[in-house]
């Protein structure tokens, strides 16, 4: 059997090509690294955290961080007003923030893509009605609508996630619709239709995979926005309820101590900021890697 070996290099897989462009963006790689660290900390919180997030040690109320005057090394980032270890609470808090981001993005991507596909594929009256409904949602400031929705549903983490997902929905619908509209008249779609592909096949298997790039970028941005919004709702007292170690809720509890104990306010916010920056850096990298227009330049 004579096999002629012609090609010496394998064609790049999709992932290899993606990683080639993504890794050129140093910020994105850094963001990914930070995100992975936070993810690992969140998953292994019970093993990593030095203390329980809820045990109150009455001997060390508002203890300063280890490096500040009067701090103890056992409580590296200090303690809060009821003597709970702030570092441990932050590590457990990462679970909530990442979970919120994940649930919100999953909910709003699935429903948004579905609705956007329908609007973009069928056009006509269906499209008009869907887009008007999205306009209505967009007419409210996102945080206000989320706040009022939570007031209707009742304060709490689950309801906050539902509210934020709903507020995020129009972005995904609009994006999907625009992408579908530009794809559906292209030759490969028409060819597929002529070959006898049904509506569902056309929508989900032919068109959708070619609209994914902007959706992935938007999903990343929505992930960080969801963390911020959930923290804001927690801060306003409408998100996760105390004593949940959610970062925004921790900030709300810490507010009255801002003049006496800077650390109870500083660290939860820093945790939010670092997480959001890491995700946004990844988002920028994804955009560079997935946007064919930018690739050429």
């Amino acid at each position, binding site marked *: 059997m004579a096999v002629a070996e012609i090609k010496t290099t394998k064609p790049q897989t999709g992932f290899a090509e993606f990683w080639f462009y993504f890794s050129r963006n140093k910020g994105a790689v850094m963001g990914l690294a930070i995100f992975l660290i936070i993810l690992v900390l969140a998953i292994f919180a019970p093993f990593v955290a030095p203390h329980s997030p809820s045990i109150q040690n009455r001997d060390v109320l508002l203890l300063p961080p280890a490096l500040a005057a009067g701090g103890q090394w056992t409580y590296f980032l200090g303690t809060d007003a009821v003597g709970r270890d702030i570092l441990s609470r932050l590590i457990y808090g990462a679970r909530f923030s990442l979970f919120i981001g994940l649930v919100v993005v999953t909910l709003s991507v699935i429903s948004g893509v579905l609705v956007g596909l329908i609007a973009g594929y069928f056009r006509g009256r269906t499209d008009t009605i869907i887009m008007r*409904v999205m*306009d209505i949602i967009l007419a*409210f400031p996102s945080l206000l609508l989320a*706040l009022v929705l939570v*007031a209707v549903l009742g304060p709490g983490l689950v309801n906050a996630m539902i509210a934020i997902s709903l507020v995020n929905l129009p972005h995904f619908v609009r994006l999907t619709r625009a992408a579908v509209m530009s794809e559906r008249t292209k030759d490969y779609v028409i060819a597929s239709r002529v070959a006898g592909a049904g509506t569902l096949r056309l929508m989900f298997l032919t068109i959708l995979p070619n609209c994914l790039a902007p959706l992935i970028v938007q999903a990343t941005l929505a992930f960080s926005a969801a963390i911020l919004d959930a923290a804001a709702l927690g*801060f306003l007292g409408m998100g996760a309820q105390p004593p949940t170690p959610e970062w*925004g809720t921790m900030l709300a509890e810490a507010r009255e101590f801002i003049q006496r104990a800077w650390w109870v306010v500083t660290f939860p*916010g820093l945790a939010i900021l670092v997480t*959001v*920056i890491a995700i946004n850096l990844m988002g920028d990298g994804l955009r560079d890697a997935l946007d064919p227009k930018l690739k050429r330049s």
Partner: protein
Amino acid sequence: MLRFIFGRLAVLIPTFLGVSLIAFSFIRLLPGDPVMLMSGERVMAPERHAELMHQLGLDRPMYVQYFDYLGGLVTGDFGSSIVTKRPVLDDFMNLFPATLELSLCAIIVAVLLGIPAGVIAAVKRGTWLDQSLMGVALVGYSMPIFWWGLLLIIFFSGYLGWTPVSGRISMMYFFPQVTGFMLIDSLISGQAGAFKSAVSYLILPTVVLATIPLAVIARQTRSAMLEVLGEDYVRTARSKGLTPFRVIGVHALRNALIPVITTIGLQVGVLLAGAILTETIFSWPGIGKWMVDSVFKRDYQVVQGGLMLIAAMIMIINLIVDVLYGFINPRIRH
């Protein structure tokens, strides 16, 4: 152009109806008895309950109630607060100038710093200056502003003692409300030190509220400038021997600003969402704090009316931005 404006207006009508339907159903979706909620009372005799049902018109069919509500909206009746009994529209009108003043200052700061920062970053693309400016913008863009406000209070108000923590002006000054803008009213009053006091109260909230729009505008300006700087007409302008300042400031920037203006228009919603947090942190007596307080006081008539008013305002501002955009960029009119 007129057709363009009317076209946009026609689209607004269904959106307005939808928004009113949401505001209308909000109060009816709340768990609990609507009469108890609306009257704010806890215990009630059945006769009084029925009487109030009738008084509030809740015993009529839903669609009649909705049309009645719409009729009220058209004549400027947005309901009255359960707590203060004052009409919602009056409170809105009283508090809105405070939010408007804060938002205007924030957007002015954001534009005045964001556009130059974006232009410099684009012109110096790839240098340390570009990287640091965009690094700062990324931090600003990712900022939880409620935390940012608390940090600024800790440092500037607590540690340095430079700025006051809450309110719009020192209690020492009192003057009639003319424009509703504290900066202007304090100047008109002629009281020594009043203007300075108003400024000192305004600085921190403005910085907090401007943070995200500033970062967004800087990033958008940079990418728009980068796109434009590669165009043929910029090269032509350069080869004509124009100064770099003129090429960048006049030829490039003018075209790069078109998407930036859209971005600025889109910041209206961002500003109002930010105002909710900023006003809560700084006890700024505007509509953001008013809405949050009403949610907590369960003053649902105010929440309902406020939702409607705020949404209507955003729709009108978006319409104005759209029309202005049509003027600047004639291509989108068609």
